[in-house]
């Protein structure tokens, strides 16, 4: 392998490991560890209808700036976030990790995910999505500057999904 190909390979490994780690934090409801993955200007977006159009104009399931991400985490920590008390039991599989764009400091990355949710009150639900990340290198670490979760069935009526996805 050329050194260029090795570099690309190790970058993909680093990105993939980052995404696996994020998935594990989400599955384990490790709220603070998950929050620490964000940059200070992070945006967490889950559109409601297909790709979502302009989130500044149209309703999204989640369109959180960094302070709203923090609010979401603080709400979990009250212990009275009843949509997650008891917590959903979760395991997800993440795959098809690709780096679509490499602009040095920032990477545009896509992956697919399937999440199995078991809720005490509602039973089992399977969620599937294409996840799109803007990852930024800050010091030694990658962080999420943007995460967009495009649920495959987001044009239909959805059950509550107050867990981290």
């Amino acid at each position: 392998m050329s050194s260029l190909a090795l570099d690309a390979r190790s970058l993909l490994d680093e990105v993939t490991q980052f995404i696996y780690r994020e998935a594990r934090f989400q599955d384990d409801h490790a709220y603070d560890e998950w929050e620490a993955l964000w940059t200070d200007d992070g945006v967490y977006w889950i559109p409601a209808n297909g790709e979502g159009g302009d989130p500044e104009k149209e309703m999204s399931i989640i369109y959180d700036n960094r302070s709203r991400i923090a609010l979401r985490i603080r709400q979990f920590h009250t212990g009275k976030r009843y949509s997650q008390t008891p917590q959903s039991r979760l395991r997800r599989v993440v795959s098809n990790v690709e780096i679509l764009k490499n602009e040095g400091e920032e990477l545009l990355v896509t992956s697919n995910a399937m999440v199995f949710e078991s809720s005490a009150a509602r039973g089992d639900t399977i969620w599937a999505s294409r996840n799109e990340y803007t990852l930024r290198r800050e010091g030694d670490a990658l962080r999420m500057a943007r995460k967009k979760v495009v649920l495959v069935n987001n044009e239909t009526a959805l059950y509550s999904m107050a867990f981290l996805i």
Partner: protein
Amino acid sequence: MSNCAHVIPIAPAAATGPAVRWDELVHDDHVHGSLYTDPAIYQAELQKIWYRTWVYVGHESEVPNANDYVMKSIGPEPILMTRDKSGQINLLHNRCPHRGNRVCMSEKGNARSFTCPYHGWTFANDGALRGYPFPSGYEGADRSKLGLGKVARVASHRGFVFGSFAQEGESLLEHLGAAAGAIDALCMNSPEGEVEVTAGYLKHKVKANWKFLVENETDGYHPSFVHASIFEVAQSGIGTLYDSDSTAVSRDFGKGHTENDLRPEFRKRDVPMGWFGTTADKLPAYVAQMEAAYGKDKAREIMIDGTPHIMIFPNLFIAEIQLFVLQPLSVDHTVQHVTAIQFKGAPDINRRLRQQTMGSVGPAGFLLADDAAMYERTQLGVQASNPEWLYLGRGRHRERLDENGYRISDNTDETPSRGIWRHYKSMMEAA
């Protein structure tokens, strides 16, 4: 072929079962658990409520241009809301009169006509049959009887479009009663006197009977508990509106319409825009527009009182800044279609209305995900057999009439629930 084949009435499932004695299930301050779980009762409700009374369908601003259409519903039935070339709003059943195919599969768009893909029948957007292929096979057929089904009555108030499957009955304004005034008050919050529905919908499904949602919308007792988590971390002023010493009141307008009237509390606070959790200086453009439109004094009044919190039976919930449209799918499944209300001509506040709505509602909302958890847990709990009844007696001893003769009580009291059930019983008992 008979041209009238499509109008043969289908007997409702419930009509074949034993007659339900509604007064045995709905008492003044108790209701029976089976009302939320019995599939036969749900079928009866479709016939007696959803397919009879005025049901909110959509807002005229969702179809602003000639030939716009949007997919809506009345109960579990999909309904196409169209604006035809003359500007008229039509409510059409989404079913081909030929073989029953669903004619339109897209959520919204602009179309002068709809063509059924099965055999190519084409309908104008007012429902009339325009034509069918190979017409020689239909010699003698009366084409005027082969259009899309039309919702029997369509009426709107301030752009809010309602439909009723009943050919006859009270007018929309008679049905709305005082709720029409609440819609008017809402519209006053726009400097142009109109609200718009332009931000698209979240569709949030819950595994629960629709009536749990209707009752919860004006249940002023639950916020202190169900929403404690967000009140605690968001420094929201909402929590105290639902304290036991709040001066806000719950009200039963009759006809199933109920509200939490928060104005006494807002008037006491006397802060323009306080109802929206902000102050006038944060929204200078909006405040200036309001003052120009209504004059300083009236604008101040409107900006103190804010928007209503009213549940218009059976399916339109105006929650200050959000519009919820409730849609039952089955005895234990309900969808809440929810969007941010937009004040026509007020872009600076509209952006904040959208942002705040997105945070609060929908499947991951700070408020609504927790309401949904309660709906689903209640649906589970009510299947336990003992006690058989739900107790709705809170505040009965302190219920009183307001100056207009409507029943009111403390904001945390169950006056709204009792009003909803009184109306429910009268509808279910009607012939």
